[in-house]
């Protein structure tokens, strides 16, 4: 019986984790590896592999077609353009030390859309064929141009059958008119909450007065809009991270139960101030301790907490089709399903590409709203967006769950052909999947409870932890 290609990796229990290209996995030992690699499988091996979807009799039979379907389901297929990030201004009323988006001071002229650009953006949106649209306003601080947000919102409500708007704001100064906007049912608020007031002040607001203003506004936002309409993301300095419990306590205070931990991003102006280029190791250690803290919390709480990205990766392991995060897809084709319109009308495939371009590393722009899309550069990048044939990933059991982030590689190393295991992307995701599999194969009731909660099942199913010995 032919066996589909199996990739393997050592795990922390002296067994090997095996996985195929469709994401089917199990654990076994080095004796099985030897039999498999040398074509000396025993009948019990063949039976196990066949029953678990790793073998077939001939191309096109039911077992093969099933595997082919599962393999295809793991691939990301870009859909029509229905998600646009708009940057109506680069001006901001804060000057965070690690600003990820290359801001300018609030009073600096020349960094807002002019009337011609506004009209071009509306024409660009008007040419989209989608019936549903999601618009995310970023900056700078987008609430500084409430007038533009309202014009775009009104236009989209008229043009599309369904519209959703996300305002990424620092919640530093929220006018009466801004609250009115945020309270609209199709408007969602996203902000930054750097773990606790002390850290937030040292990293963002600097003065006690500004810190108090932010926390007053966040309290008001949760009360007026409801926690379901407010998301808050902490940016963590891996060199000096806050204790996990203080992050948990802060988010609980605001009723926010999904926490998306992000390390300082090595892009934009952040690179000037933080040693974020080679911090994967310390970040992974911190992140692991945070997950452990969540497991402890969930064990005694009837209202669970999650770390958003970890849960996203867990779900990518357990089933296909979780392609909702733009940084973790395979192939990670950019510039089609969503794009970014910058303050000057230039179009970028991702927000990170905008930063890479702004700091002068590479010009990853793909046209502008005046003259239209030009995808030549981005399509050259997209030719490398598949991990299935990458000389490193082709040996990695996490390949089907993982993805590619070429723009992150470009940003950090100025190239996309570095050995994968030397990249931040690979180091962080190898750690995450190691952690996930150590938890899947754990017999701790505490861990199993959190895994069930995070995967959306009533109980942890031990069948998820197959072992063949």
């Amino acid at each position: 019986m032919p066996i589909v290609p199996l990739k393997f990796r050592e795990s922390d229990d002296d067994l090997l984790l095996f996985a195929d290209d469709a994401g089917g996995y199990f654990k076994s030992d080095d004796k099985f590896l030897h039999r498999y690699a040398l074509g000396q499988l025993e009948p019990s091996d063949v039976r196990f592999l066949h029953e678990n979807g790793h073998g077939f009799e001939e191309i096109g039979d039911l077992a093969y077609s099933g595997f082919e379907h599962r393999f295809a389901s793991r691939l990301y297929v870009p859909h029509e353009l229905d998600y646009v990030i708009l940057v109506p201004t680069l001006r901001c009323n804060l000057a965070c030390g690690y600003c990820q988006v290359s801001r300018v001071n609030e009073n600096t002229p020349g960094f807002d859309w002019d009337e011609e650009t506004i009209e071009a953006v509306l024409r660009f949106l008007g040419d989209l064929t989608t019936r549903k649209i999601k618009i995310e306003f970023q900056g700078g601080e987008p609430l500084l141009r409430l007038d533009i947000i309202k014009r775009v919102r009104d236009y989209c409500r008229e043009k599309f059958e369904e519209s959703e708007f996300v305002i990424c704001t620092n919640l530093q100064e929220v006018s009466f008119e801004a609250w009115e906007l945020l309270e609209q049912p199709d408007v969602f608020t996203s902000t930054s909450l750097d773990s606790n007031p002390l850290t937030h002040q040292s990293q963002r607001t600097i003065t006690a007065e500004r810190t108090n203003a932010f926390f007053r506004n966040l309290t008001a936002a949760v009360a007026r809009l409801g926690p379901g309409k407010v998301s808050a993301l902490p940016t963590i300095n891996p060199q000096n991270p806050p204790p996990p419990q203080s992050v948990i306590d802060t988010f609980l205070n605001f009723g926010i139960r999904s926490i998306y931990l992000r390390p300082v991003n090595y892009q934009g102006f952040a690179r000037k101030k933080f040693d974020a280029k080679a911090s994967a190791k310390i970040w992974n250690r911190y992140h692991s301790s945070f997950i452990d803290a969540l497991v402890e919390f969930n064990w005694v709480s009837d209202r669970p907490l999650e770390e958003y990205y970890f849960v996203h990766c867990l779900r990518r392991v357990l089933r296909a089709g979780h392609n909702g995060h733009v940084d973790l897809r395979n192939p990670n084709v950019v510039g089609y399903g969503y794009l970014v319109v910058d303050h000057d009308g230039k179009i970028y495939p991702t927000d990170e590409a905008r930063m890479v371009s702004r700091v002068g590393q590479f010009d990853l722009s793909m046209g502008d709203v005046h003259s239209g899309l030009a995808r030549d550069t981005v399509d050259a990048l997209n030719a490398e967006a598949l991990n299935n044939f990458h000389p490193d990933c082709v040996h990695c059991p996490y390949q089907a769950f993982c993805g590619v982030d070429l723009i992150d590689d470009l940003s950090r190393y100025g190239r996309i052909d570095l050995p994968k295991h030397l990249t931040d992307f690979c180091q962080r995701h190898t750690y995450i999947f190691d952690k996930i599999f150590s938890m899947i194969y754990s017999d701790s009731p505490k861990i199993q409870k959190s895994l069930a909660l995070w995967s959306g099942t009533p109980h942890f199913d031990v069948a998820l932890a197959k072992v063949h010995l």
Partner: protein
Amino acid sequence: MPPSYLAHLMEPASNTTRSQTIVPDALMPWVADASARFGYLHPGVGLNIEGTLVKLAGPGADDPALLQDFLFCLYRQKIYSESLIHRRMLIEGVTGFANRTT
């Protein structure tokens, strides 16, 4: 620890340590590919091949995990090369990239 079917010899640790292993005959066709990959993953470790004998030398070369990793490189290269045709057919079948196997 390396699997029991690996014969390996260790020398006392010093600045440059050494170890060696016998490659099973069935894996010999992949020694060249595995050596290239091993060298890429462990650029500080010297690799010398004499028939079926593979010798490692350099700082930390007496770490049993290194011998295991070399063996894993052999397995991986064999699995990769022998399953490449299946993998190509698979990607062709679901994406229509017709030129991958030609």
